[in-house]
């Protein structure tokens, strides 16, 4: 469970330190402007929190905690810069600072040396062709939202977070770098590797659920 910390009487902690969006924020947000911008990003923020915590109650706590921390740190945000990346960064820091490591689903897939085009190659091996329906779409559609989220949850955390930010919110690489406070090159390499791992996790889940068999049989009959 996400270990939410009570920030009600807490001074600024490391979670919001150094969050100034520029060196000196000459103009600051008003509380009303902050609330309006927060409302705009709240659905995205919740989706991200849910993917990190994989639990509705913990996601709600994490978003609430983030909103409060961001509100108290809003003087550090310069209007005109990327509010969404700024508040996602606060949420990410809060999550990493508080969640207990080792609670992710035990990884059942060996991700070492996963080749490129993993899903494409395995689909072809199993005779899943492009007869009418796109095989990637057919596979993922049958897997459903929960298993897709489970597949991302199986990735080593640093890869899963990058994939979540790119897939879920379609952040550009430099925005993900900004949220995670890592170089753009790190985002690029983690995303590349993360996508390969994700394809392998999706394939194993599809096999486990009998989806590969179902699609193979359908193709054989066609």
């Amino acid at each position: 469970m996400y270990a939410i910390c009570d920030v009600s009487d807490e001074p600024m902690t490391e979670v919001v330190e150094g969050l100034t969006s520029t060196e000196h924020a000459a103009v600051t947000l008003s509380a009303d402007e902050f609330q309006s911008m927060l409302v705009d990003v709240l659905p995205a923020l919740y989706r991200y929190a849910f993917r990190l915590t994989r639990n509705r109650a913990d996601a709600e706590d994490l978003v609430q905690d983030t909103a409060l921390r961001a509100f108290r740190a809003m003087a550090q945000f310069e209007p005109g810069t990327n509010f969404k990346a700024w508040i996602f960064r606060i949420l990410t820091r809060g999550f990493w600072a508080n969640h207990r490591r080792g609670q992710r689903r035990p990884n059942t897939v060996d991700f070492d040396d996963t080749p490129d085009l993993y899903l494409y190659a395995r689909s072809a091996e199993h005779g899943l062709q492009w007869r009418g329906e796109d095989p990637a779409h057919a596979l993922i559609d049958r897997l459903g939202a929960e298993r897709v989220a489970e597949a991302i949850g199986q990735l080593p955390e640093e890869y899963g977070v990058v994939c979540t930010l790119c897939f879920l919110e379609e952040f550009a690489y430099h925005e993900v770098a900004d949220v995670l406070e890592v170089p753009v090159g790190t985002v690029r390499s983690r995303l590349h590797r993360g996508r390969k791992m994700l394809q392998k996790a999706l394939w194993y889940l599809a096999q486990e659920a009998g989806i590969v068999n179902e699609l193979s049989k359908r193709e054989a009959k066609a």
Partner: protein
Amino acid sequence: MTPLSRYTCEEAFRRLDDYLDHELSAEEMELVREHLEICAGCAREFNFERSVIQGVEEKLQQIDLPDTLQSRILKLLNDQRR
């Protein structure tokens, strides 16, 4: 490499992720696009990868903000302002 493409398959493939994520320069995007127009094998692989990404995005985005969360947060922030 086909004679009409300025990128080889390998050069195009190396840019697959960046191409799908629109992270290439306009010139590089055009060079990859040009390769895909005349290389059916690469086009098939790129389309498959795009389809995987779109499918995952679609599934992950199927989650709505809980009804009361926004109002609870705004109340909390209003309390802070007092």
